[in-house]
Protein backbone atom coordinates (compact mmCIF):
# COMPACT_ATOMS: atom_id res chain seq x y z
CA UNK A 1 0.00 0.00 0.00
CA UNK A 2 2.82 2.37 0.87
CA UNK A 3 4.42 1.56 -2.46
CA UNK A 4 1.17 2.35 -4.25
CA UNK A 5 0.66 5.64 -2.39
CA UNK A 6 4.26 6.59 -3.02
CA UNK A 7 3.74 6.03 -6.74
CA UNK A 8 0.53 8.06 -6.64
CA UNK A 9 2.20 10.99 -4.91
CA UNK A 10 5.18 11.02 -7.26
CA UNK A 11 2.76 10.72 -10.15
CA UNK A 12 0.71 13.63 -8.89
CA UNK A 13 3.71 15.94 -8.79
CA UNK A 14 4.95 14.77 -12.17
CA UNK A 15 1.46 15.07 -13.61
CA UNK A 16 1.18 18.69 -12.46
CA UNK A 17 4.35 19.52 -14.41
CA UNK A 18 2.92 17.74 -17.47
CA UNK A 19 -0.25 19.74 -17.03
CA UNK A 20 1.71 22.98 -16.86
CA UNK A 21 3.47 22.17 -20.13
CA UNK A 22 0.23 21.01 -21.72
CA UNK A 23 -1.42 24.32 -20.82
CA UNK A 24 1.10 26.14 -22.99
CA UNK A 25 -0.01 23.95 -25.84
CA UNK A 26 -3.71 24.48 -25.18
CA UNK A 27 -3.33 28.27 -24.98
CA UNK A 28 -1.70 28.46 -28.41
CA UNK A 29 -4.26 26.08 -29.85
CA UNK A 30 -7.21 28.00 -28.44
CA UNK A 31 -5.98 31.41 -29.49
CA UNK A 32 -4.52 30.74 -32.91
CA UNK A 33 -5.57 27.21 -33.84
CA UNK A 34 -1.95 26.19 -34.23
CA UNK A 35 -0.86 22.76 -33.01
CA UNK A 36 2.52 23.44 -31.49
CA UNK A 37 4.63 20.32 -31.77
CA UNK A 38 7.66 22.26 -30.49
CA UNK A 39 6.24 22.58 -26.96
CA UNK A 40 8.54 19.80 -25.74
CA UNK A 41 11.55 21.68 -27.08
CA UNK A 42 10.60 24.77 -25.10
CA UNK A 43 10.95 22.48 -22.08
CA UNK A 44 14.34 21.33 -23.36
CA UNK A 45 15.55 24.90 -23.81
CA UNK A 46 14.14 25.73 -20.37
CA UNK A 47 16.07 22.94 -18.71
CA UNK A 48 19.32 24.14 -20.26
CA UNK A 49 18.55 27.82 -19.56
CA UNK A 50 18.08 26.93 -15.91
CA UNK A 51 21.48 25.28 -15.92
CA UNK A 52 23.13 28.20 -17.71
CA UNK A 53 21.88 30.88 -15.35
CA UNK A 54 22.38 28.83 -12.17
CA UNK A 55 25.75 27.18 -12.76
CA UNK A 56 28.05 29.03 -15.20
CA UNK A 57 26.52 32.46 -14.43
CA UNK A 58 26.18 31.56 -10.76
CA UNK A 59 23.03 33.61 -10.23
CA UNK A 60 20.84 33.01 -7.18
CA UNK A 61 17.66 31.07 -7.84
CA UNK A 62 15.14 33.93 -8.29
CA UNK A 63 17.19 36.15 -10.62
CA UNK A 64 18.06 33.01 -12.59
CA UNK A 65 14.40 32.16 -13.07
CA UNK A 66 13.73 35.79 -13.98
CA UNK A 67 16.46 35.72 -16.62
CA UNK A 68 15.11 32.43 -17.99
CA UNK A 69 11.63 33.92 -18.26
CA UNK A 70 13.03 37.00 -20.00
CA UNK A 71 14.77 34.74 -22.51
CA UNK A 72 11.52 32.84 -22.98
CA UNK A 73 9.68 36.07 -23.76
CA UNK A 74 12.24 36.99 -26.44
CA UNK A 75 12.09 33.46 -27.83
CA UNK A 76 8.30 33.53 -28.01
CA UNK A 77 8.27 36.90 -29.76
CA UNK A 78 10.88 35.81 -32.32
CA UNK A 79 9.14 32.52 -33.08
CA UNK A 80 5.76 34.16 -33.56
CA UNK A 81 7.10 36.98 -35.71
CA UNK A 82 9.51 34.98 -37.89
CA UNK A 83 7.78 31.66 -38.38
CA UNK A 84 4.10 31.76 -37.51
CA UNK A 85 3.15 35.23 -38.77
CA UNK A 86 4.11 34.50 -42.41
CA UNK A 87 2.12 31.29 -42.26
CA UNK A 88 -1.15 32.86 -41.10
CA UNK A 89 -4.03 31.38 -43.06
CA UNK A 90 -1.99 28.52 -44.51
CA UNK A 91 -3.35 24.96 -44.30
CA UNK A 92 -3.09 23.04 -41.04
CA UNK A 93 -0.40 20.73 -42.37
CA UNK A 94 1.91 23.61 -43.33
CA UNK A 95 1.67 25.16 -39.87
CA UNK A 96 2.18 21.84 -38.09
CA UNK A 97 5.18 21.09 -40.28
CA UNK A 98 6.57 24.53 -39.44
CA UNK A 99 6.33 23.82 -35.72
CA UNK A 100 7.97 20.43 -36.27
CA UNK A 101 10.77 22.17 -38.15
CA UNK A 102 10.95 24.69 -35.30
CA UNK A 103 11.42 21.81 -32.87
CA UNK A 104 14.28 20.52 -35.01
CA UNK A 105 15.92 23.95 -35.01
CA UNK A 106 15.54 24.31 -31.25
CA UNK A 107 17.04 20.84 -30.80
CA UNK A 108 19.92 21.89 -33.04
CA UNK A 109 20.44 25.10 -31.06
CA UNK A 110 20.48 23.16 -27.80
CA UNK A 111 23.09 20.84 -29.30
CA UNK A 112 25.16 23.77 -30.50
CA UNK A 113 25.03 25.80 -27.29
CA UNK A 114 25.14 23.07 -24.66
CA UNK A 115 26.67 20.18 -26.57
CA UNK A 116 23.72 17.83 -26.02
CA UNK A 117 25.35 16.86 -22.76
CA UNK A 118 23.87 15.95 -19.44
CA UNK A 119 23.96 18.97 -17.15
CA UNK A 120 22.98 18.43 -13.56
CA UNK A 121 22.02 21.20 -11.19
CA UNK A 122 19.91 19.57 -8.55
CA UNK A 123 20.26 20.79 -5.05
CA UNK A 124 20.16 24.36 -6.28
CA UNK A 125 16.37 24.61 -6.18
CA UNK A 126 14.98 25.32 -2.69
CA UNK A 127 14.10 22.19 -0.73
CA UNK A 128 11.13 21.37 1.43
CA UNK A 129 10.89 18.01 3.10
CA UNK A 130 7.51 16.62 3.93
CA UNK A 131 6.60 13.22 5.28
CA UNK A 132 3.02 12.10 5.72
CA UNK A 133 2.73 8.80 7.55
CA UNK A 134 5.06 6.40 5.80
CA UNK A 135 5.12 8.27 2.53
CA UNK A 136 7.95 10.70 2.07
CA UNK A 137 7.38 13.28 -0.60
CA UNK A 138 10.59 14.07 -2.51
CA UNK A 139 11.36 17.75 -2.14
CA UNK A 140 11.80 18.24 -5.90
CA UNK A 141 8.35 16.80 -6.55
CA UNK A 142 6.86 19.07 -3.92
CA UNK A 143 8.52 22.13 -5.45
CA UNK A 144 7.25 21.05 -8.86
CA UNK A 145 3.76 20.66 -7.50
CA UNK A 146 3.75 24.05 -5.76
CA UNK A 147 5.25 25.98 -8.67
CA UNK A 148 2.88 24.34 -11.14
CA UNK A 149 -0.15 25.17 -9.02
CA UNK A 150 1.04 28.78 -8.61
CA UNK A 151 1.63 29.14 -12.35
CA UNK A 152 -1.75 27.71 -13.23
CA UNK A 153 -3.39 30.04 -10.71
CA UNK A 154 -1.56 33.06 -12.18
CA UNK A 155 -2.67 32.08 -15.67
CA UNK A 156 -6.25 31.66 -14.53
CA UNK A 157 -6.19 35.11 -12.92
CA UNK A 158 -4.62 36.55 -16.07
CA UNK A 159 -7.40 35.15 -18.20
CA UNK A 160 -10.08 36.22 -15.78
CA UNK A 161 -9.08 39.74 -14.80
CA UNK A 162 -6.80 41.37 -17.37
CA UNK A 163 -7.63 43.02 -20.64
CA UNK A 164 -5.26 40.86 -22.68
CA UNK A 165 -6.69 37.78 -20.99
CA UNK A 166 -10.15 38.85 -22.04
CA UNK A 167 -8.87 39.46 -25.58
CA UNK A 168 -7.34 35.99 -25.63
CA UNK A 169 -10.53 34.34 -24.47
CA UNK A 170 -12.47 36.33 -27.04
CA UNK A 171 -10.08 35.31 -29.84
CA UNK A 172 -10.51 31.71 -28.84
CA UNK A 173 -14.25 32.18 -29.10
CA UNK A 174 -14.57 34.02 -32.39
CA UNK A 175 -11.76 35.56 -34.42
CA UNK A 176 -13.98 37.64 -36.71
CA UNK A 177 -15.86 39.31 -33.89
CA UNK A 178 -12.59 40.12 -32.15
CA UNK A 179 -11.18 41.74 -35.26
CA UNK A 180 -14.34 43.72 -35.86
CA UNK A 181 -14.19 45.31 -32.40
CA UNK A 182 -10.62 46.39 -33.02
CA UNK A 183 -8.56 43.90 -31.04
CA UNK A 184 -5.31 43.07 -32.82
CA UNK A 185 -5.33 39.32 -33.30
CA UNK A 186 -1.58 39.29 -33.97
CA UNK A 187 -0.91 40.74 -30.51
CA UNK A 188 -3.01 37.98 -29.01
CA UNK A 189 -1.05 35.39 -30.99
CA UNK A 190 2.25 36.86 -29.83
CA UNK A 191 1.15 36.84 -26.21
CA UNK A 192 -0.05 33.26 -26.49
CA UNK A 193 3.34 32.16 -27.84
CA UNK A 194 5.11 34.08 -25.09
CA UNK A 195 2.99 32.36 -22.44
CA UNK A 196 3.62 28.98 -24.04
CA UNK A 197 7.38 29.64 -24.02
CA UNK A 198 7.30 30.79 -20.39
CA UNK A 199 5.38 27.76 -19.10
CA UNK A 200 7.61 25.49 -21.18
CA UNK A 201 10.75 27.06 -19.74
CA UNK A 202 9.42 26.90 -16.17
CA UNK A 203 8.50 23.24 -16.69
CA UNK A 204 11.99 22.67 -18.06
CA UNK A 205 13.64 24.22 -15.02
CA UNK A 206 11.46 22.14 -12.69
CA UNK A 207 12.21 18.89 -14.50
CA UNK A 208 15.87 19.84 -15.02
CA UNK A 209 16.18 20.55 -11.30
CA UNK A 210 15.01 17.00 -10.58
CA UNK A 211 16.82 14.91 -13.14
CA UNK A 212 19.26 17.27 -14.80
CA UNK A 213 18.99 18.85 -18.23
CA UNK A 214 19.51 16.56 -21.17
CA UNK A 215 18.11 16.06 -24.66
CA UNK A 216 15.44 13.67 -23.35
CA UNK A 217 13.57 16.62 -21.88
CA UNK A 218 12.14 17.22 -25.36
CA UNK A 219 10.24 13.93 -25.09
CA UNK A 220 8.26 15.40 -22.20
CA UNK A 221 6.52 17.40 -24.90
CA UNK A 222 5.24 14.16 -26.42
CA UNK A 223 3.80 13.24 -23.02
CA UNK A 224 2.18 16.64 -22.90
CA UNK A 225 0.43 15.80 -26.18
CA UNK A 226 -1.01 12.66 -24.63
CA UNK A 227 -2.19 14.84 -21.74
CA UNK A 228 -3.76 17.32 -24.12
CA UNK A 229 -5.52 14.63 -26.13
CA UNK A 230 -6.81 12.90 -23.02
CA UNK A 231 -8.11 16.13 -21.55
CA UNK A 232 -9.58 17.41 -24.78
CA UNK A 233 -7.50 19.79 -26.85
CA UNK A 234 -9.46 22.92 -26.09
CA UNK A 235 -9.91 22.56 -22.36
CA UNK A 236 -7.48 24.01 -19.83
CA UNK A 237 -9.22 22.32 -16.90
CA UNK A 238 -9.14 19.08 -18.85
CA UNK A 239 -5.41 19.46 -19.41
CA UNK A 240 -4.80 19.84 -15.67
CA UNK A 241 -6.90 16.84 -14.72
CA UNK A 242 -5.54 14.71 -17.55
CA UNK A 243 -1.99 15.68 -16.58
CA UNK A 244 -2.55 14.40 -13.06
CA UNK A 245 -4.30 11.24 -14.31
CA UNK A 246 -1.54 10.48 -16.78
CA UNK A 247 1.27 11.20 -14.33
CA UNK A 248 -0.27 8.82 -11.78
CA UNK A 249 -1.14 6.12 -14.33
CA UNK A 250 2.34 6.25 -15.80
CA UNK A 251 4.01 5.85 -12.42
CA UNK A 252 1.69 3.09 -11.29
CA UNK A 253 1.99 1.22 -14.60
CA UNK A 254 5.76 1.52 -14.61
CA UNK A 255 5.99 0.56 -10.94
CA UNK A 256 3.90 -2.60 -11.24
CA UNK A 257 4.34 -3.74 -14.84
CA UNK A 258 8.00 -2.99 -15.55
CA UNK A 259 9.29 -5.93 -13.44
CA UNK A 260 7.04 -8.23 -15.51
CA UNK A 261 8.33 -7.08 -18.90
CA UNK A 262 11.77 -8.20 -20.02
CA UNK A 263 12.86 -4.91 -21.58
CA UNK A 264 11.04 -2.59 -19.19
CA UNK A 265 10.71 1.01 -20.24
CA UNK A 266 6.92 0.98 -20.24
CA UNK A 267 6.93 4.56 -18.96
CA UNK A 268 8.34 5.73 -22.30
CA UNK A 269 5.68 4.14 -24.47
CA UNK A 270 2.77 4.49 -22.06
CA UNK A 271 1.70 7.98 -23.16
CA UNK A 272 1.51 6.77 -26.75
CA UNK A 273 -0.69 3.85 -25.86
CA UNK A 274 -3.00 6.25 -24.05
CA UNK A 275 -2.90 8.53 -27.08
CA UNK A 276 -3.91 5.80 -29.55
CA UNK A 277 -6.69 4.51 -27.30
CA UNK A 278 -8.07 8.01 -26.74
CA UNK A 279 -7.89 8.81 -30.46
CA UNK A 280 -9.72 5.65 -31.45
CA UNK A 281 -12.46 5.69 -28.83
CA UNK A 282 -12.87 9.30 -27.76
CA UNK A 283 -11.12 11.68 -30.19
CA UNK A 284 -12.39 14.79 -28.41
CA UNK A 285 -10.92 13.71 -25.10
CA UNK A 286 -12.54 13.81 -21.68
CA UNK A 287 -13.58 17.44 -21.60
CA UNK A 288 -13.12 18.69 -25.15
CA UNK A 289 -15.95 20.08 -27.21
CA UNK A 290 -17.49 17.52 -29.51
CA UNK A 291 -17.02 18.90 -32.99
CA UNK A 292 -20.31 19.19 -34.80
CA UNK A 293 -19.85 20.12 -38.43
CA UNK A 294 -22.53 22.00 -40.26
CA UNK A 295 -22.57 21.77 -43.99
Amino acid at each position, binding site marked *: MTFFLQLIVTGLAQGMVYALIAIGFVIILKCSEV*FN*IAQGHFVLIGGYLGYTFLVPFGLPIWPAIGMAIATAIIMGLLIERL*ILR*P*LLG*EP*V*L*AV*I*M*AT*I*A*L*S*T*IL*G*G*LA*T*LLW*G*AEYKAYHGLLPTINLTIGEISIPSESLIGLIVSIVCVAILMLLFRYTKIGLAMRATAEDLQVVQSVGIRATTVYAVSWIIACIVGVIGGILLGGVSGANMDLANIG*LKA*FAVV*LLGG*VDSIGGAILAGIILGMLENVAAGYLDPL*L*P*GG*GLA*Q*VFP*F*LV*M*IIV*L*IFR*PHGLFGLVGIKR*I
Partner: protein
Amino acid sequence: MSLRTGTFQESYAKDMAIFNSRLKWGIVVAFIIYLLVCPLFSSDRILTILTIMGITVISVHGLNILTGYCGQISIGHAGFMAVGGYTSAVLCAKLGVPFWAALPCGALAAGIAGLIFGLPSLKIKGFYLIMATIAAHFIIIWTIIQLRGITGGPDGLSLPRPVIGSIALSSKTNYFYLVMIVTCLATLLAKNIVRTRAGRAFIAIRDNELAAEVMGVSLWSYKLQAFFIGCVYAGVAGSLLIHYFSFASTDQFPFMDSVWYLGMLIVGGMGSTTGAIFGAVALKLLDELVTMVGPVLSAAVAPQAAASLALISQGSIIIIFLIFEPRGLHHRWEMIKAYFSLWPFSHQE
Protein backbone atom coordinates in the same frame (compact mmCIF):
# COMPACT_ATOMS: atom_id res chain seq x y z
CA MET B 1 -0.32 20.74 -66.73
CA SER B 2 1.11 22.56 -69.69
CA LEU B 3 2.02 20.73 -72.84
CA ARG B 4 5.26 21.43 -74.62
CA THR B 5 4.90 23.51 -77.73
CA GLY B 6 4.79 21.34 -80.84
CA THR B 7 3.54 18.20 -79.07
CA PHE B 8 0.35 16.94 -80.66
CA GLN B 9 -1.86 14.36 -79.08
CA GLU B 10 -3.90 12.80 -81.83
CA SER B 11 -5.15 9.67 -80.08
CA TYR B 12 -6.33 8.70 -76.64
CA ALA B 13 -3.31 6.47 -76.15
CA LYS B 14 -1.02 9.40 -76.89
CA ASP B 15 -2.97 11.60 -74.52
CA MET B 16 -2.62 9.09 -71.72
CA ALA B 17 1.06 8.34 -72.32
CA ILE B 18 3.34 9.29 -69.44
CA PHE B 19 6.27 10.00 -71.73
CA ASN B 20 4.38 11.92 -74.37
CA SER B 21 7.17 13.39 -76.44
CA ARG B 22 10.36 12.22 -78.11
CA LEU B 23 12.33 14.49 -75.80
CA LYS B 24 10.94 12.76 -72.71
CA TRP B 25 11.71 9.33 -74.16
CA GLY B 26 15.21 10.56 -74.90
CA ILE B 27 15.66 11.72 -71.33
CA VAL B 28 14.39 8.39 -69.99
CA VAL B 29 16.73 6.37 -72.20
CA ALA B 30 19.66 8.61 -71.31
CA PHE B 31 18.85 8.26 -67.62
CA ILE B 32 18.69 4.46 -67.84
CA ILE B 33 22.00 4.34 -69.69
CA TYR B 34 23.47 6.59 -67.02
CA LEU B 35 22.24 4.25 -64.29
CA LEU B 36 23.74 1.26 -66.12
CA VAL B 37 27.19 2.72 -66.62
CA CYS B 38 27.33 4.83 -63.47
CA PRO B 39 28.85 2.08 -61.23
CA LEU B 40 31.76 1.74 -63.65
CA PHE B 41 33.22 5.12 -62.85
CA SER B 42 31.75 5.87 -59.42
CA SER B 43 33.50 5.39 -56.14
CA ASP B 44 31.96 3.19 -53.44
CA ARG B 45 30.93 6.25 -51.52
CA ILE B 46 28.96 7.72 -54.41
CA LEU B 47 27.31 4.34 -55.04
CA THR B 48 26.27 4.17 -51.39
CA ILE B 49 24.80 7.66 -51.58
CA LEU B 50 22.89 6.80 -54.77
CA THR B 51 21.60 3.53 -53.30
CA ILE B 52 20.34 5.20 -50.13
CA MET B 53 18.83 7.92 -52.30
CA GLY B 54 16.93 5.30 -54.32
CA ILE B 55 15.63 3.66 -51.15
CA THR B 56 14.54 7.07 -49.86
CA VAL B 57 12.74 7.80 -53.12
CA ILE B 58 10.73 4.57 -52.74
CA SER B 59 9.75 5.48 -49.21
CA VAL B 60 8.80 9.04 -50.13
CA HIS B 61 6.64 7.75 -53.01
CA GLY B 62 4.66 5.78 -50.44
CA LEU B 63 4.28 8.82 -48.21
CA ASN B 64 3.32 10.89 -51.25
CA ILE B 65 0.44 8.57 -52.10
CA LEU B 66 -0.71 8.60 -48.50
CA THR B 67 -0.14 12.27 -47.65
CA GLY B 68 0.27 14.07 -50.96
CA TYR B 69 -2.60 12.43 -52.79
CA CYS B 70 -4.94 11.11 -50.11
CA GLY B 71 -4.29 13.89 -47.60
CA GLN B 72 -3.78 11.56 -44.64
CA ILE B 73 -0.75 12.98 -42.87
CA SER B 74 1.59 10.37 -41.44
CA ILE B 75 4.64 11.04 -39.26
CA GLY B 76 5.23 7.38 -38.58
CA HIS B 77 6.68 6.40 -41.91
CA ALA B 78 10.03 5.27 -40.51
CA GLY B 79 8.08 3.05 -38.12
CA PHE B 80 6.34 1.32 -41.02
CA MET B 81 9.70 0.96 -42.76
CA ALA B 82 10.92 -0.75 -39.60
CA VAL B 83 8.01 -3.21 -39.74
CA GLY B 84 8.84 -4.16 -43.32
CA GLY B 85 12.55 -4.26 -42.68
CA TYR B 86 12.35 -6.37 -39.54
CA THR B 87 9.81 -8.80 -41.04
CA SER B 88 12.07 -9.59 -43.97
CA ALA B 89 15.14 -9.60 -41.72
CA VAL B 90 13.60 -12.13 -39.33
CA LEU B 91 12.37 -14.28 -42.22
CA CYS B 92 15.84 -14.30 -43.75
CA ALA B 93 17.92 -14.70 -40.62
CA LYS B 94 15.77 -17.01 -38.51
CA LEU B 95 13.72 -19.00 -41.01
CA GLY B 96 16.12 -19.09 -43.95
CA VAL B 97 13.59 -17.68 -46.40
CA PRO B 98 15.32 -16.48 -49.58
CA PHE B 99 15.70 -12.74 -50.10
CA TRP B 100 13.35 -12.48 -53.08
CA ALA B 101 10.52 -14.01 -51.04
CA ALA B 102 11.26 -12.10 -47.85
CA LEU B 103 11.07 -8.70 -49.54
CA PRO B 104 7.37 -8.93 -50.55
CA CYS B 105 6.54 -10.51 -47.19
CA GLY B 106 8.09 -7.51 -45.47
CA ALA B 107 6.15 -5.18 -47.72
CA LEU B 108 2.92 -7.00 -46.93
CA ALA B 109 3.60 -6.90 -43.19
CA ALA B 110 4.21 -3.16 -43.36
CA GLY B 111 0.99 -2.75 -45.32
CA ILE B 112 -0.96 -4.64 -42.67
CA ALA B 113 0.62 -2.52 -39.92
CA GLY B 114 -0.44 0.50 -41.96
CA LEU B 115 -4.02 -0.80 -42.09
CA ILE B 116 -4.07 -1.21 -38.31
CA PHE B 117 -2.69 2.24 -37.54
CA GLY B 118 -4.74 3.72 -40.37
CA LEU B 119 -7.96 2.73 -38.62
CA PRO B 120 -8.10 5.90 -36.48
CA SER B 121 -7.97 7.94 -39.70
CA LEU B 122 -11.59 7.04 -40.28
CA LYS B 123 -12.58 9.11 -37.27
CA ILE B 124 -9.89 11.73 -36.99
CA LYS B 125 -7.87 14.01 -39.21
CA GLY B 126 -5.29 16.77 -39.20
CA PHE B 127 -3.45 17.15 -35.95
CA TYR B 128 -5.09 14.12 -34.33
CA LEU B 129 -3.98 11.86 -37.16
CA ILE B 130 -0.46 13.25 -36.84
CA MET B 131 -0.44 12.38 -33.16
CA ALA B 132 -1.81 8.89 -33.90
CA THR B 133 0.93 8.21 -36.44
CA ILE B 134 3.63 9.61 -34.13
CA ALA B 135 2.29 7.24 -31.49
CA ALA B 136 2.37 4.44 -34.07
CA HIS B 137 6.06 5.06 -34.70
CA PHE B 138 7.01 4.84 -31.03
CA ILE B 139 4.77 1.85 -30.34
CA ILE B 140 6.25 -0.05 -33.31
CA ILE B 141 9.84 0.64 -32.27
CA TRP B 142 9.07 -0.26 -28.65
CA THR B 143 7.42 -3.52 -29.73
CA ILE B 144 10.44 -4.44 -31.84
CA ILE B 145 12.73 -3.87 -28.89
CA GLN B 146 10.42 -5.87 -26.60
CA LEU B 147 10.37 -8.89 -28.94
CA ARG B 148 14.00 -9.48 -28.09
CA GLY B 149 13.88 -13.21 -28.73
CA ILE B 150 12.86 -12.74 -32.36
CA THR B 151 14.30 -9.41 -33.40
CA GLY B 152 17.44 -9.24 -31.30
CA GLY B 153 16.03 -6.20 -29.48
CA PRO B 154 18.50 -3.41 -28.91
CA ASP B 155 21.45 -5.55 -30.01
CA GLY B 156 20.21 -5.75 -33.58
CA LEU B 157 20.13 -8.71 -35.92
CA SER B 158 22.73 -9.58 -38.49
CA LEU B 159 21.58 -11.13 -41.76
CA PRO B 160 23.11 -13.25 -44.48
CA ARG B 161 24.02 -11.35 -47.65
CA PRO B 162 21.06 -11.22 -50.02
CA VAL B 163 21.09 -13.60 -52.98
CA ILE B 164 18.67 -13.77 -55.89
CA GLY B 165 18.92 -17.05 -57.82
CA SER B 166 22.58 -17.43 -58.56
CA ILE B 167 23.38 -13.70 -58.41
CA ALA B 168 24.97 -12.69 -55.15
CA LEU B 169 24.01 -9.14 -54.24
CA SER B 170 27.00 -8.79 -51.99
CA SER B 171 28.82 -6.17 -54.02
CA LYS B 172 27.75 -2.56 -53.88
CA THR B 173 27.36 -2.48 -57.67
CA ASN B 174 24.91 -5.37 -57.80
CA TYR B 175 22.87 -4.00 -54.94
CA PHE B 176 22.85 -0.62 -56.63
CA TYR B 177 21.35 -2.19 -59.77
CA LEU B 178 18.71 -3.99 -57.69
CA VAL B 179 17.71 -0.82 -55.83
CA MET B 180 17.58 1.20 -59.03
CA ILE B 181 15.36 -1.39 -60.76
CA VAL B 182 13.00 -1.42 -57.79
CA THR B 183 13.05 2.39 -57.60
CA CYS B 184 12.18 2.76 -61.29
CA LEU B 185 9.39 0.20 -61.03
CA ALA B 186 8.09 1.86 -57.86
CA THR B 187 8.11 5.26 -59.55
CA LEU B 188 6.25 3.96 -62.58
CA LEU B 189 3.76 2.18 -60.34
CA ALA B 190 3.25 5.28 -58.19
CA LYS B 191 2.68 7.40 -61.28
CA ASN B 192 0.10 4.93 -62.52
CA ILE B 193 -1.63 4.28 -59.19
CA VAL B 194 -2.67 7.91 -58.99
CA ARG B 195 -4.20 7.71 -62.47
CA THR B 196 -6.44 4.79 -61.59
CA ARG B 197 -9.91 4.89 -60.06
CA ALA B 198 -8.32 4.54 -56.62
CA GLY B 199 -5.93 7.41 -57.30
CA ARG B 200 -8.72 9.72 -58.36
CA ALA B 201 -10.64 8.70 -55.24
CA PHE B 202 -7.58 9.62 -53.12
CA ILE B 203 -7.44 13.07 -54.68
CA ALA B 204 -11.16 13.55 -54.13
CA ILE B 205 -10.77 12.62 -50.46
CA ARG B 206 -7.85 15.01 -50.06
CA ASP B 207 -9.63 17.94 -51.68
CA ASN B 208 -12.96 17.56 -49.95
CA GLU B 209 -13.78 14.59 -47.84
CA LEU B 210 -17.46 15.36 -47.55
CA ALA B 211 -17.93 15.99 -51.26
CA ALA B 212 -16.10 12.77 -52.05
CA GLU B 213 -18.31 10.80 -49.72
CA VAL B 214 -21.46 12.33 -51.18
CA MET B 215 -20.23 11.45 -54.66
CA GLY B 216 -20.04 7.81 -53.64
CA VAL B 217 -16.36 7.45 -52.82
CA SER B 218 -16.15 5.02 -49.93
CA LEU B 219 -13.97 6.82 -47.38
CA TRP B 220 -13.53 3.68 -45.31
CA SER B 221 -12.22 1.64 -48.19
CA TYR B 222 -10.08 4.23 -49.95
CA LYS B 223 -8.44 5.72 -46.86
CA LEU B 224 -7.36 2.25 -45.78
CA GLN B 225 -6.20 1.50 -49.32
CA ALA B 226 -4.07 4.63 -49.24
CA PHE B 227 -2.57 3.56 -45.91
CA PHE B 228 -1.95 0.08 -47.27
CA ILE B 229 -0.26 1.23 -50.48
CA GLY B 230 1.79 3.90 -48.70
CA CYS B 231 3.00 1.45 -46.08
CA VAL B 232 3.78 -1.28 -48.64
CA TYR B 233 6.15 1.22 -50.25
CA ALA B 234 7.62 1.92 -46.83
CA GLY B 235 8.01 -1.82 -46.22
CA VAL B 236 9.89 -2.33 -49.49
CA ALA B 237 12.17 0.60 -48.69
CA GLY B 238 12.71 -0.65 -45.14
CA SER B 239 13.71 -4.15 -46.18
CA LEU B 240 15.98 -2.86 -48.95
CA LEU B 241 17.66 -0.62 -46.37
CA ILE B 242 18.16 -3.40 -43.83
CA HIS B 243 19.49 -5.87 -46.40
CA TYR B 244 21.88 -3.25 -47.74
CA PHE B 245 23.63 -3.09 -44.39
CA SER B 246 23.05 -6.81 -43.71
CA PHE B 247 22.14 -5.69 -40.24
CA ALA B 248 18.85 -4.76 -38.65
CA SER B 249 18.73 -2.27 -35.84
CA THR B 250 16.08 0.13 -34.59
CA ASP B 251 18.65 2.92 -34.90
CA GLN B 252 18.17 2.76 -38.66
CA PHE B 253 14.63 4.05 -38.22
CA PRO B 254 14.88 7.13 -36.00
CA PHE B 255 11.83 9.28 -35.38
CA MET B 256 13.51 12.22 -37.10
CA ASP B 257 13.47 10.23 -40.34
CA SER B 258 9.69 10.12 -40.21
CA VAL B 259 9.65 13.89 -39.97
CA TRP B 260 12.33 14.21 -42.60
CA TYR B 261 10.35 12.18 -45.17
CA LEU B 262 7.47 14.61 -44.79
CA GLY B 263 10.00 17.42 -45.16
CA MET B 264 11.17 15.89 -48.43
CA LEU B 265 7.59 15.84 -49.64
CA ILE B 266 7.16 19.51 -48.76
CA VAL B 267 10.42 20.55 -50.41
CA GLY B 268 9.67 18.50 -53.50
CA GLY B 269 6.03 19.41 -53.82
CA MET B 270 3.13 17.42 -52.45
CA GLY B 271 0.88 15.43 -54.69
CA SER B 272 3.31 14.93 -57.52
CA THR B 273 5.42 11.88 -58.28
CA THR B 274 8.18 14.02 -59.76
CA GLY B 275 8.04 16.20 -56.68
CA ALA B 276 8.66 13.21 -54.43
CA ILE B 277 11.81 12.37 -56.39
CA PHE B 278 12.96 16.00 -56.40
CA GLY B 279 12.46 16.28 -52.65
CA ALA B 280 14.18 13.03 -51.77
CA VAL B 281 17.18 13.74 -53.99
CA ALA B 282 17.52 17.39 -52.98
CA LEU B 283 17.38 16.75 -49.25
CA LYS B 284 19.67 13.73 -49.43
CA LEU B 285 22.17 15.93 -51.28
CA LEU B 286 21.77 18.51 -48.52
CA ASP B 287 22.48 15.75 -46.00
CA GLU B 288 25.66 14.85 -47.85
CA LEU B 289 26.68 18.50 -47.97
CA VAL B 290 26.21 18.73 -44.22
CA THR B 291 28.24 15.54 -43.77
CA MET B 292 31.05 17.09 -45.80
CA VAL B 293 30.96 20.56 -44.24
CA GLY B 294 30.32 19.24 -40.73
CA PRO B 295 33.83 18.05 -39.84
CA VAL B 296 35.36 21.31 -41.08
CA LEU B 297 32.93 23.29 -39.00
CA SER B 298 33.48 21.03 -36.00
CA ALA B 299 37.21 21.64 -36.18
CA ALA B 300 36.75 25.38 -36.60
CA VAL B 301 33.93 26.17 -34.16
CA ALA B 302 33.03 23.46 -31.68
CA PRO B 303 32.90 19.65 -31.70
CA GLN B 304 29.11 19.56 -31.59
CA ALA B 305 28.70 21.97 -34.52
CA ALA B 306 28.32 19.17 -37.08
CA ALA B 307 25.36 17.55 -35.33
CA SER B 308 23.64 20.84 -34.71
CA LEU B 309 24.26 22.04 -38.27
CA ALA B 310 22.39 19.00 -39.58
CA LEU B 311 19.38 19.68 -37.36
CA ILE B 312 19.31 23.44 -37.90
CA SER B 313 19.71 23.19 -41.68
CA GLN B 314 16.96 20.57 -41.90
CA GLY B 315 14.55 22.65 -39.86
CA SER B 316 15.37 25.90 -41.64
CA ILE B 317 15.00 24.43 -45.11
CA ILE B 318 11.52 23.11 -44.30
CA ILE B 319 10.44 26.46 -42.86
CA ILE B 320 11.92 28.39 -45.79
CA PHE B 321 10.05 26.22 -48.28
CA LEU B 322 6.81 26.46 -46.31
CA ILE B 323 6.98 30.24 -46.27
CA PHE B 324 8.44 31.04 -49.67
CA GLU B 325 7.67 28.07 -51.94
CA PRO B 326 4.85 26.05 -50.41
CA ARG B 327 4.23 24.21 -53.67
CA GLY B 328 7.74 22.86 -53.69
CA LEU B 329 10.54 22.34 -56.18
CA HIS B 330 8.19 20.56 -58.58
CA HIS B 331 6.17 23.74 -59.07
CA ARG B 332 9.32 25.81 -59.56
CA TRP B 333 10.53 23.27 -62.13
CA GLU B 334 7.25 23.50 -64.07
CA MET B 335 7.56 27.29 -64.09
CA ILE B 336 11.08 27.11 -65.46
CA LYS B 337 10.03 24.65 -68.16
CA ALA B 338 7.07 26.80 -69.15
CA TYR B 339 9.27 29.87 -69.27
CA PHE B 340 11.71 28.31 -71.69
CA SER B 341 9.12 26.62 -73.87
CA LEU B 342 7.12 29.83 -74.31
CA TRP B 343 10.03 32.24 -74.49
CA PRO B 344 10.09 35.03 -75.68
CA PHE B 345 6.36 35.58 -76.01
CA SER B 346 5.02 34.38 -72.72
CA HIS B 347 3.75 36.32 -69.83
CA GLN B 348 3.67 34.48 -66.55
CA GLU B 349 1.60 35.24 -63.51
